């Protein structure tokens, strides 16, 4: 199975609601990053959280990291139709081998 896996695979919410996506990974990491991909703007970096950090904020985004559980969550508050996209977590794994791995993504639909 993959290093990073997002949950749920798909999420549909109403505008104004909050959206939470989770990411689990298997190996020790240097950092974990969240990306958004839609047809309009392509793949865009959202936020990077390092292994010694527990929480980061950027605008309406809040990311948490629990290295003991090897998991991260992305919270989007007060969602907008423009937030409709696929969201991926990517892990920068420590050591050699396949160092930077994207999960399969969560498809978020924000309905007006």
């Amino acid at each position, binding site marked *: 199975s993959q290093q990073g896996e997002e949950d749920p695979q798909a999420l549909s919410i109403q505008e104004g609601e909050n959206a939470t996506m989770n990411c689990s990974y298997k190996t020790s990491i*240097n950092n974990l990053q969240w990306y958004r991909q839609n047809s309009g703007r*392509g793949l865009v970096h959202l936020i990077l959280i390092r292994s010694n950090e527990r929480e980061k904020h950027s605008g309406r985004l809040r990311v948490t990291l629990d290295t003991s559980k090897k998991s991260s969550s992305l919270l989007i508050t007060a969602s907008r139709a423009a937030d409709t996209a696929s969201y991926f977590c990517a892990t920068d794994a420590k050591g050699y081998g*396949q160092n*930077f791995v*994207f999960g*399969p*993504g969560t498809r978020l639909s924000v309905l007006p």
Partner: protein
Amino acid sequence: EAGVAQSPRYKIIEKRQSVAFWCNPISGHATLYWYQQILGQGPKLLIQFQNNGVVDDSQLPKDRFSAERLKGVDSTLKIQPAKLEDSAVYLCASSRDSGFEGTQYFGPGTRLTVL
């Protein structure tokens, strides 16, 4: 600043043919990455360059894929010969930082269809 440029945007070829993709990173970015994204999946790192040297090509199918980054700026990714399973979007990204410590900026991608 200008973003990462890629060409062509779309390419359709027959299996066993050859194809090449071009990438021009953001000016001043030393690190360049090529990813393969199959429909419904996350991007998969194929190769990472630091200036014109290869840092990691462990996921590159070297029997058919090759990549180069001459003069540490533009890069080309080639597939020869192509297989049906190579149908995917090929993304190029660049970063000011080395490794995976910083923000990667992605180009629009080249959508390859192998018939």
